[in-house]
Each structure stands twice: as structure tokens, then as C-alpha cells.
């Protein structure tokens, strides 16, 4: 039964709500079916002795992840993080305060893994692992988008995302996986991408794009698939292949590559940049997904790997790919592995090989949404903070009207779109709408101040989430666009005497 959702009213500033215990208690996501679990190497259903299995798993993770072990001990309950989560601000459910979310598992940790909790459980707030606790885990560890905003403010850097990942891994180990994430990982293994788009359909789509772009600008911009010997392998979120506004971003990358005069290709084997193994905290699955990219790069004999606009994908790519699937010593050592498409375009711009006509975008007044995992879990370029400056430099190079939202809502203090970390599913729609509130508030404020017309983003999840939730807040769904759409629209194609093969103007 569809429940009516109270969409938060946007105020002139963000109010810390009065707590409403358990308002989101029944809002957990659908549970994965046994066969989806099996495909990922997890138990299918909750077994009778689930408690002991869960506790064993917890013990194992405490020995495998320093973050989890230290974060279980170090929190002093100072409260600094309590108002930092967009889900707390949007839902008012106290269990969405980062520390309270951690406590759902910490109180079990204390009970079974610490002396104080074994002997004085009441004193230190330790509890037995009961079915009620299990349900809370399922609910509230799926109300965290692993956005790491809390970790920015905690005096010990406690990252609730790490705790959420551990909790989800424990849940998976006892057959309580989340349908959305696990189903998608299964599709990646079977077909190669999150959307389950098979190779022929992908090829068709790309050919269609080629025709559209040619009809549009009169230049044959290529969208190659599985072309061995290309210089660059582009790995991009599968939403880029047809969803709006993502696809205009893909067109933008293709135009940039065209203008750069490089050969490039997509891969049907690695036709997905996102790595949902991250969401469920599973190193094994994350590694298995990452290895497809290595294999594709070897098979196609490329020299460089470039990632399209995708937030969590970029985190796994930037921070983990080398560790999970490296070393990449078979690639051209002059370039970082992997590179972000924004880095690629930025370098091109810096070296004067890209001419942009800003006036094309004069009808747009832009602002930029820093995607959480790009902002707080990765970098671009070679100085810290390049992940903030490079996309902004690109936008400013492509249009005349750019304004930032309020400073406490951008850069590493950015608010998550509300749909990250495996929550971009309709069974969590209420959470997604409410969680988007802080970002919508900042957008609203900037809109009043600067008459913003469009919100640019570099993440497939952000783009999909905004498309869905913007209308609930009185905006239009097409106000969100890709950074590379701006670039693509503004590119002035130049004839290139060195690479005449690129000058196929018809």
C-alpha cells in the first residue's frame, strides 16, 4: 500500500528537528531473495542459529578492519555528529544520528566483545543480540548512504559508513541481504552492468547515439564498443547509456575524446563503472567487480583507463582499484590509473586543446552539487581538494553563470543527494525524499539568491535521485544536468591538421 509521504517544508535555514523516536522504524528495504544471495556467495535465508553466525562474523570483521575495531571503542558520545546526517535532518528519527546508528551495533559489540559490557551491560548500554536489534540493523543500516559527512566532523574521524558496511556484511552473512544492491551485483556478474543491458542492446544504443549526434551537429562523433587497440578504456555508469540526463554526459565525453584526437572504447565486459560491492561492505565482491575492469583493459590492449561521471564508482576507482585489481604496470605510466573524465577534460583545457563557447550555455544559471563520495573519499588532480576545483573549473569554462550554494553545504561539507550507498530504490522512496531535504534547502536558497536554473552533478546516483526528488520540492526534474553536457554543448570543433581522421565533417 502506498503510504503518503510528508515532504519536508523548506525553511530559510536548516533546523535541527525535535527527535521523533522510531518514526522511520518500519522503513527498511526489501530483503534479497535466496537465489540473489547465493549468486554473491551469501547465505540465502535467516538460519536458526543466526545469532552465533552474526557474532562470529562480527568477530572476524573486527580482526580484518582496523576502522571497525577502533570506531567501536573510540566514540566518546560527544554529540558533535548528531546533527550532521541528512537523514536525521530530514526524518527526525534519532537512530539516524550517526552516533546512534553506530550504537545499534556498538551495544552488541560491548555485550559480547568487551569486559565492561559482559559484566555491567546496563551501565555501558550493552544489549543482547535479539531479533529486535536485528530488525533495527536492517532498517537503519539501510538508512545510511555511506556518505561520510559524519566522519568530517567527528574528533576521531569515526566514519559511520565503515560501520554501516560492516553491519551490512554481517546481515548478508546471515541471509538478510538487501534486494536492490544484491540484485544489481548479480546483474553485473551475469551481464556486465547494473541495468542488465546485454552487449547487442548496448551496441544498438551506441549506434543510435552516433546517428543522433551526427544529425545534431553534423560531425561523426564515434561511440566505440570493444575496439581492441584503442588508447583509452572508458568505464562509465550504465545509466549513461540511455537515462536522462546521464546520456548527455556520455555525449559530452565522446565529443571531448573526439576533439582530443584520441582513440577510445567502451567495453561490454566492463560496461559499468559503479561497484556495489562497496555498498554491502564486501571486499570479495568489490574485488570481483573491480577485476572485470582489469580484464577488459588487458583484453582490449588499452593504454589508459578513464572513468565517467559516477560518485561511488570514482571512490572505488580512485581509492581502491589499484589495491583491488592492480598493479596496472601494463598501462601507460605517464597517466594516473585510473583517471576521471573531469581530469582528462581539464588537462585538455589547460593545454589549450579545447575551445569552449560559453555563450551557448547563457540560458543556464548553474550551481554544482559535490557528490559525497567524490568529495570526501577521493581526489582529482594532484593537489588535495582537486575534486572540488576541477569540476568547477570545467563548469566555469563552459558557461558564464555559475554560483556556489552556501559554503557549509559544499566541498567536503556537502550534503548527500539522499539516494547514495545502495538506497536508490523505490522501496526507500520516503527516506530518499526526506534525506534530500538539506540539499534541496541549499538549492532553494541559492535559487532565490541567484535565480539558479540548473544543478550540475558528476554522479549517476545523484542525477537519478535528483530527477526523482526535485519535483517533490517544487523544482523541475530536468533541472539536473551532467557536467559533461555543459562541456559537450559548448565545444567548438576545430579542424585538426595533425589528426585528419578526426575531421570527418559531413
Amino acid at each position: 500500500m502506498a503510504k503518503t509521504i510528508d515532504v519536508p517544508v523548506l525553511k530559510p535555514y536548516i533546523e535541527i528537528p525535535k527527535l521523533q523516536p522510531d518514526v522511520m522504524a518500519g522503513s527498511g528495504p526489501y530483503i534479497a531473495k535466496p537465489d540473489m544471495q547465493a549468486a554473491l556467495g551469501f547465505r540465502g535465508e535467516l538460519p536458526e542459529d543466526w545469532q552465533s553466525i552474526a557474532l562470529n562474523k562480527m568477530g572476524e570483521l573486527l580482526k580484518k578492519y582496523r576502522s571497525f575495531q577502533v570506531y567501536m571503542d573510540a566514540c566518546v558520545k560527544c554529540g558533535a555528529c548528531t546533527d550532521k546526517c541528512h537523514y536525521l535532518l530530514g526524518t527526525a528519527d534519532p537512530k539516524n544520528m550517526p552516533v546512534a546508528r553506530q550504537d545499534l551495533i556498538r551495544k552488541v559489540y560491548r555485550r559480547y566483545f568487551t569486559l565492561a559490557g559482559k559484566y555491567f551491560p546496563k551501565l555501558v548500554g550493552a544489549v543482547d543480540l535479539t531479533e529486535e536489534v536485528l530488525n533495527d540493523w536492517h532498517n537503519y543500516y539501510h538508512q545510511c548512504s555511506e556518505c561520510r559527512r559524519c566522519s568530517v566532523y567527528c574528533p576521531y574521524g569515526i566514519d559511520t559508513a565503515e560501520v554501516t558496511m560492516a553491519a551490512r556484511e554481517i546481515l548478508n552473512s546471515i541471509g538478510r541481504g538487501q534486494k536492490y544492491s544484491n540484485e544489481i551485483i548479480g546483474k553485473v556478474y551475469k551481464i556486465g552492468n547494473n541495468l542488465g543491458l546485454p552487449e547487442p542492446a548496448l551496441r544498438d544504443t551506441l549506434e543510435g547515439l552516433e546517428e543522433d549526434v551526427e544529425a545534431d551537429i553534423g560531425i561523426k562523433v564515434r561511440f566505440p564498443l570493444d575496439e581492441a587497440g584503442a588508447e583509452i578504456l572508458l568505464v562509465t555508469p550504465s545509466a549513461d547509456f540511455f537515462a536522462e540526463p546521464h546520456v548527455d554526459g556520455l555525449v559530452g565525453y565522446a565529443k571531448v575524446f573526439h576533439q582530443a584526437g584520441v582513440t577510445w572504447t567502451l567495453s561490454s565486459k566492463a560496461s559499468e563503472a559503479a561497484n556495489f560491492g562497496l555498498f554491502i561492505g564486501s571486499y570479495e565482491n568489490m574485488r570481483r567487480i573491480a577485476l572485470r575492469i582489469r580484464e577488459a583493459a588487458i583484453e582490449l590492449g588499452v593504454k589508459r583507463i578513464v572513468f565517467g561521471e559516477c560518485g561511488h564508482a570514482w571512490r572505488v576507482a580512485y581509492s581502491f582499484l589499484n589495491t583491488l585489481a592492480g598493479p596496472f604496470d601494463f598501462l601507460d605510466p605517464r597517466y594516473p590509473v585510473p583517471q576521471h573524465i573531469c581530469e582528462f577534460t581539464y588537462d585538455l583545457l589547460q593545454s589549450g586543446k579545447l575551445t569552449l563557447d560559453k555563450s551557448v550555455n547563457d540560458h543556464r544559471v548553474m550551481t554544482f552539487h559535490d557528490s559525497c563520495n567524490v568529495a570526501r573519499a577521493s581526489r582529482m588532480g594532484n593537489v588535495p581538494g582537486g575534486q572540488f576545483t576541477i569540476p568547477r573549473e570545467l563548469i566555469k569554462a563552459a558557461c558564464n553563470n555559475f554560483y556556489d550554494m552556501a559554503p557549509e553545504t559544499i566541498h567536503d561539507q556537502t550534503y548527500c543527494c539522499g539516494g547514495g550507498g545502495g538506497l536508490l530504490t523505490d522501496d526507500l522512496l520516503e527516506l530518499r525524499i526526506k534525506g534530500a531535504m538539506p540539499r534541496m534547502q541549499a538549492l532553494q536558497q541559492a535559487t532565490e539568491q541567484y535565480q539558479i536554473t540548473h544543478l550540475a552533478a558528476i554522479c549517476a546516483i545523484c542525477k537519478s535521485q535528483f530527477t526523482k526528488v526535485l519535483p517533490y520540492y517544487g523544482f523541475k526534474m530536468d533541472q539536473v544536468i551532467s557536467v559533461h553536457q555543459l562541456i559537450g554543448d559548448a565545444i567548438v570543433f576545430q579542424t585538426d591538421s595533425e589528426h585528419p581522421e578526426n575531421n570527418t565533417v559531413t
Partner: protein
Amino acid sequence: MVLTTIYALLFYFATAVLLFGVGYKVYQYASVPAPLKIPTTPAPTTRTGVVLRMLREVIWFESLFRANKWIWLFGMLFHGALWLVLLRHVRYFIDPVWTWVILIQPIGKYAGFIMMIGLVGLLVRRIAVERIRYISSPSDYLMLVLLLAIGGSGLMMTFVLHTDIVQFKAFMLGVMTFSWQPIPPDPILLLHLTAVLLLMIIFPYSKLLHAPGVFFSPTRNQVDNPREQRHIADWAKRLEDASSS
């Protein structure tokens, strides 16, 4: 003499628990691998940069400052003053007393008040702010009460009811050199000592582990260089070996 024996033995016990307990936790933190690079970015790209980040964190409470000015203020007052008070107390453990310890004595004495202001501020917030009340367990309040008892009894002895500090120092040095001297049977001193010993004993079993823990927090102590260097844990390496063989 019974009192002296009890306190002397308690001192050995508490010291042993503190050292071994914290030693064990530090060993544990150091030996559990951090299998992935997870610094909260923007993060330093060099070791030196990380050391500076850590120093800003433990001296200036940089993240807390960005988060909440009130908690920062009270936390800063408490921890800053605590350091001065602790350093001042070095005089009871050495003979002759080092010059710098003598020099900070006057500031150290008054720092006790600052410490109390910080603690009261934290306690009031814990009770008054709904969100912090929600996340507090009895132990969180008791910890503040214990610290307040230590600070309060200490201030009493410094400013109101002086204890026989010369005799106390003789006791302390006696405990350290295993030639026990009688402890002054002063109730406030005994309360002060009992609370301190209790704190030492619960240290390795409580949230006081934040003190060593902060240095092991991967979001703060990692260098941001994952594209340049692989960062593979032993257990993850085994997955690799298993799939390649």
C-alpha cells in the same frame, strides 16, 4: 598502616591495569590491518602532511571545531587544563622537582578551575541537549561525575583544606621505590586518590580509549596516495594468491 598497604597495592594494581590494558589495545589497533585507503578527503598526500593533520586534530581539535563550537570550547577547556594539572602533579613523583614543573605550578593550580568549567559545561550539555541525552548511557554521566570528583577534591586540597602534602609525596616516592611510607589519612586526599585509581583501572575498558584510538583512525592517519601505491592487507593478499594459483 593498613591504609598505606591498601593504597600502595592499589597503586601497583591500577598502574598495571592501565599500562597492560592500554598496551594491549594499542597492540590490537596496530595489528588489525586497514585493508583499504579510506582517508576522509581532502587529505594530505605525504606522511608529513598526515603528521600535521594529526597534530591539528589532537592539539586544536580541528574537526570538532568545525562541528560544534560549544562542545569544542568545553572539550578544549577540559583537555587543555587537564594537561596543565597533570604536568603540575609531576612534582609529587620526582625529587628534586624540575624547574619547569615549578614554573607551571601557579598556572597549574588555577587550571583546576578551568577544568571544572569544561566538565560542568559538558555535563550540562549532556543533560540539556536532547540529542546528546539520547545517546548517553549511565557510564557517560558517571565518567563526568568521576572527573568532577577528582577535580573537586583536588581543588579542595589546593585551596581550602590543605593536606599534608610533604607526607603524601613521601608516600608516593615510597610506593615508587618500594620502601613504603605512611599515607596521610586525610579523607579528601583518599577520595581524590580513589577516584584517580578508579579512572586508571577503567581506562582500558571504556571510551577513554579515544586517546590512543585517535592515532589509529584510518580516516585521519592515512596518506592520500592510492593511485601511486597499492595498499594490500595480508588477508586480502591471500585472496589474490588463491585466485591466481
